[in-house]
């Protein structure tokens, strides 16, 4: 099994290598990078490219490691016991399987995505050490050991909001998705909007990277914002010339709201434009 990027995902050499290393050595791959650089997309695309089912586990600040394994539904059991349901005698009926269990149980290798692992409590990754290392866990209620039939290909994404414990990191491969350069960006756009006019694209990319260069922006626009913006530009059928017009009134790029998501950023941007206009 080798991953080579896909029809709608451009993978750089180093990323491809990291993915293939993780697949070959059956170790989890931890992906970090700026928001909007396609961390979550990667797992989806790898699953699609390798033809494997994808199990997703999205982490929230309240997620506990246990929930990924299984949960014991005491409330239903209690209700059933009050109603005299015969199911109540078997505790297995009340064990709800979590995403990890489902992935371990699958009859073929699967891709498992643990999304935004840094959102959870600080102890969360530590609670998954054995599960990710040995790919097994123990169900106390039924006294059974659940072991993965095939080691799943695990992708873990992080936005760097919390530092992950060393013991956890040691068990993973790590890849930092760098912000794409202009060439890669062109390829990415090409994959998403095959019909886009070369001229428009070049102008748009130029404006985009210029906006990213503006000092002091709270949130720099990233790939996903660029794609949204291009979608709008195409929908409005804006001519390429409008992007780079020297006309002083329209010097602010059209539909810039798609690129800048923060009110302060928009203000800052407009102010800078205003200042540069005065200097001319």
């Amino acid at each position, binding site marked *: 099994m080798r991953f080579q990027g896909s029809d709608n995902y451009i993978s750089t050499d*180093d990323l491809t*290598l*990291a993915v293939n290393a993780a697949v070959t050595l059956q170790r989890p791959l931890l992906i*970090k990078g700026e928001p909007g650089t396609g961390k979550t997309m990667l797992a989806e695309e790898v699953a699609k490219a390798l033809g494997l089912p994808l199990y997703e586990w999205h982490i929230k600040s309240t997620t506990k490691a246990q929930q990924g394994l299984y949960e014991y539904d005491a*409330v239903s*059991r209690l209700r059933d016991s009050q109603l005299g349901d015969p199911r109540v005698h078997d505790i297995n009926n009340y064990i709800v399987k979590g995403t990890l269990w489902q992935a371990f149980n699958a009859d073929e290798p699967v891709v498992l995505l643990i999304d935004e692992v840094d959102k959870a409590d600080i102890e969360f990754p530590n609670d998954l050490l054995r599960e990710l290392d040995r790919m097994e866990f123990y169900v106390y209620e039924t006294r059974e050991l659940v072991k993965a039939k095939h080691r799943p290909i695990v992708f873990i994404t992080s936005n760097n909001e919390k530092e992950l414990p*060393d013991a956890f990191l040691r068990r993973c*491969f790590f890849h930092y998705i760098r912000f794409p350069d202009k060439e890669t960006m062109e390829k990415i756009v090409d994959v998403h909007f095959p019909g886009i006019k070369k001229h428009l694209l070049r102008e748009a990319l130029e404006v985009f990277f210029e906006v990213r260069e503006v000092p002091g922006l709270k949130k720099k626009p990233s790939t996903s914002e660029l794609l949204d913006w291009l979608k709008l530009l195409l929908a409005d059928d804006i001519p390429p010339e409008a992007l780079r017009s020297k006309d002083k009134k329209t010097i602010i790029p059209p539909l810039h709201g798609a690129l800048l998501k923060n009110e302060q950023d928009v203000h800052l941007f407009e102010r800078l434009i205003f200042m540069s206009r005065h200097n001319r």
Partner: protein
Amino acid sequence: MLIDFFLKLRQAKVPVTTKEYLMLVEGMQKGVVGSSIDDFYYFSRTCLVKDEANFDKFDRAFGEYFKGVEAIMGVEADIPLEWLRKQAELNLSPEEKAKIEAMGGWEKLMETLKKRLEEQKGRHQGGSKWIGTGGTSPYGAYGYNPEGIRIGQDGSRNRSAVKVWDQREYQNLDDQVELGTRNIKIALRRLRRFARDGAPEELDLDNTIASTARKAGMLDILMRPERHNKVKVLLFFDIGGSMDDHIKLCEEMFSAAKTEFKHMEYFYFHNCLYDYVWKDNRRRHSERTPTTDIMHKYGHDYKLIFVGDATMSPYEILQPGGSIEYANEEAGAVWLRRMLDVYPKAIWLNPEPEQLWPYRQSIAVIREIMEARMYPITIEGLERAMRYLSK
């Protein structure tokens, strides 16, 4: 295999462990990477470095260790002669080609190369005969001999690994560098200390269910107190004078701290702490808070953080009457020590870069008073500071 490389990384302070090293070897064994050094670079980085802040250190160590090895990688494999010729021709200027002719022509050059390849067993660097790097032999890469043949160095590819690590593009991610409010917040978050205390007024759902189920359906409601960040912080900011250079950093620091800590009190001082501080810089002459009041009002469990560049005349710290603003009865050092007695968990954050500290006498004096608990305001410095405070 590669043990020296591993040790080199540890020497360069890249936190690598044996487990990761074994993972690297396993990967090499399973053939994750071919003989291309690009791939090896990417793979070893994926294996060994788990934080993008360390990429730069890794790149430098990698570059140092593998300086010139890229030539060897090609030599180890069989070199297709045709390819070499093409490669060399690409790299040579017409004059150089003429010189090759002078040496006996291309064929002879290749013949000698083959002979040398047979003679040579190991890796070589420098010198004037063997194939390797940095030498004057006509064979190898980076040589000075105009007749040199570049072996295994792919000049046309612009994404060659040498470039990748020589570019050191991850430099600005090193955690010695300062990076905005959000990162400060994340650093300060280390100081979180969640605790449940106070009146039990939140329904403890999980335990209620467990307890009810255990009692076979007798409803047993359990309550618990809410979870708070219990940490309490006293912040003292040096303001004015030489601190004007650091105003942006301090603002960021301040706004981050303000949102991060619920129990936070802040005060200003100028240069050194004396018998009073103030909360509002516009009214600092009318609304002062005596330092003793602070010591009486806020308990020992407050963490004390000074933010200041500690750059002043040493007299301002050590001499009574040394303040540049008024005649203080007791020296600043006395006040600082008094504060440290009340608040055992105390640190000093200094916006000046750490390398500068040894050259300023007053910084040394304050550092001594603080018992070396002075940290630079960088992400890495803040983390060290918070780690100390949260111990």
